[in-house]
């Protein structure tokens, strides 16, 4: 269905009237803009991304693109949107609960890999918003897709919304993070010893991935006084157990600030060590749960009498200390110790990770770029370093430098200087603006 309107303002009035927005203005989805999004992902409008079983809705690439345009995305963001939708429709992801519950669930997605730099995503200050275009609009695109494609219509006051679309998102309170979700971008470079989430989950460092969570809420903690890993885990454990009022045996995500990551890296702790310590520190016997007011959403456990054996049976905040159940992500601005603990819905919920698939066509590096960087490659080779080039995300150049075993991996010039060499070489080779690129150093991998 197509509509003719006179201008931007009239397009917005049409979309508001029909209940097609989140209450904020949208970019009009013209056929040309939508086509450029599909092109960027190498998809056709009729390509089926998945199926929403509970509402028997086929999920088609064209409709996703319309909503991504509306959200204010750029075409290059669209493959990320598609990957998130694929994760939402995984049989193990409770999308129908997120989309229809009286609770105030929303989505969180953790972005890893080269796509972060390629799209200029923000893993630093105000990562969760506001400010960064990719972070904000990718998240908003997902909400608009829930609202329009998946029909999770939130209502807009009153029993009968004027637009007449039936209200299927029955959330009684909603929450601000329903506009654009929790968009989490890992800072993989700050503390390489704390392996990035996607690598812990078995992906390659060069893979770009999205890990999708159902998020109920969060604890945001002041951890400026914690000076050892043990102190930090102890403080965090209190908040994690508090989240147990809602959540049990599901998963949670820690957003670990740089100052806190430094504490762990200095002490030689891996993310696995953090997870294990927190898991152990937050397990509780069923007897403790019953007598200390820890209950979960669907049960009255804390009102039940303690029975024989309850001391020996344990519950945990997460299903396991594994990376898929306690997701640890290094992120946030350069200063401050304000970690987040995001908690999911508990029960059978699963965090789902998907590799972001970019358009396949332009996967080889153009001869012009290879030629432009040949002098740099030869110079590095003379010193025992290997420069390799590849394309990620359709048109994002990755320049990777490896050190031969006999060569000092830390003895390269600083990354900033090397980045300038590469930029100058690319600029000299072409009158066009140099392509965006990511520089990978030996210590990165």
């Amino acid at each position: 269905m197509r509509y003719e309107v006179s201008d931007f303002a009239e397009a917005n009035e049409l979309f508001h009237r029909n209940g097609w927005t989140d209450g904020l203005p949208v970019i009009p989805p013209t056929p040309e803009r939508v086509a450029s999004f599909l092109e960027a992902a190498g998809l056709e409008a009729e390509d089926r991304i998945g199926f929403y079983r509970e509402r028997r809705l086929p999920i088609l690439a064209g409709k996703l693109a319309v909503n991504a345009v509306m959200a204010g995305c750029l075409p290059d963001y669209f493959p990320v949107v598609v990957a998130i939708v694929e994760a939402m429709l995984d049989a193990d992801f409770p999308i129908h609960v997120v989309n229809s519950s009286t609770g105030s669930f929303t989505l969180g997605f953790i972005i890893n890999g080269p796509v972060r730099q390629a799209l200029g995503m923000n893993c630093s200050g105000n990562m969760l918003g506001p400010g960064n275009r990719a972070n904000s609009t990718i998240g908003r695109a997902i909400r608009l897709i829930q609202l329009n494609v998946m029909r999770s219509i939130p209502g807009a006051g009153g029993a009968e919304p004027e637009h007449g679309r039936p209200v299927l998102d029955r959330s009684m309170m909603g929450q601000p993070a329903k506009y654009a979700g929790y968009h989490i971008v890992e800072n993989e470079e700050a503390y390489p010893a704390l392996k990035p989430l996607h690598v812990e989950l078995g992906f390659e460092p060069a893979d770009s991935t999205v890990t999708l969570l159902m998020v109920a809420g969060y604890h945001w903690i002041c951890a400026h006084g914690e000076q050892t890993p043990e102190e930090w885990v102890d403080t965090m454990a209190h908040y994690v157990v508090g989240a147990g009022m809602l959540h049990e045996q599901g998963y949670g995500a820690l957003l670990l600030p740089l100052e806190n990551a430094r504490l762990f890296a200095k002490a030689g702790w891996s993310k696995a060590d953090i997870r294990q310590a927190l898991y152990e520190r937050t397990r509780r016997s069923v007897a403790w749960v019953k007598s200390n007011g820890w209950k979960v959403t669907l049960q009255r456990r804390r009102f039940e009498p303690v029975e024989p054996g309850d001391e020996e049976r344990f519950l945990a905040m997460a299903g396991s200390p594994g990376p898929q159940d306690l997701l640890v992500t290094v992120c946030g601005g350069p200063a401050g110790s304000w970690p987040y603990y995001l908690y999911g819905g508990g029960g059978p919920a699963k965090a789902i990770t998907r590799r972001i698939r970019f358009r396949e066509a332009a996967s080889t590096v153009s001869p012009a770029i290879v030629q432009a960087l040949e002098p740099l490659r030869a110079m590095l080779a003379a010193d025992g370093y290997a420069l390799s080039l590849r394309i990620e995300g359709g048109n994002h150049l990755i320049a990777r430098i490896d050190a031969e075993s006999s060569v000092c991996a830390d003895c390269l010039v600083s990354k900033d200087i090397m980045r300038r060499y590469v930029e100058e070489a690319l600029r000299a080779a072409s009158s066009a603006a140099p392509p965006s690129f990511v520089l990978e150093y030996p210590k990165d991998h």
Partner: protein
Amino acid sequence: MALMTVLDPTQAPLADDPSSTFAVASRLDTLDGKTLGLWNNRKINAAPLLEMIAQELAKTYRVELVRGIYDPGNLMPTDGWGEVDRCDAVILANGDCGACSTSGIVNAIELEKRGIPAVLVSTPPFTEAVQVSASLRGMPAIRWALIEHPVASLDNDELRDRAIAAARQVPDIVLASR
């Protein structure tokens, strides 16, 4: 004068195609001597409500009871229903929230498609969502039992009143017109 073309952002459901709608299962002649399933989605008060409904029905019909559990938020896998195929009819509870009302009706529809009359117990705040969900899943004619909201926070006496109200509706829904 039109200067700009914009596209519709919504997805048409498969249910818009009338050929993809389904009829409800054949209704029973009586509940007497039948096997009745009580399927509980672990919501608070779901299990006692189902037992009380069965007690009310037992005043009129001799029924054998089979009990099972289903997912409160999602469509059940076809092979996840346990002994449900032994049942002549099934009652599902509770449908007193956004996810459990709408996933409840689509699970009831799956049982109807399997040939088993199924009755979801739900509450009025979710009537529109349940009806729309039934239409999306291709069975707009399915009926369910409606009791007053709330359910989870009731004591046993209040819950008994809800059970009596639900039990009155069950024969109307599962039996051929009397």
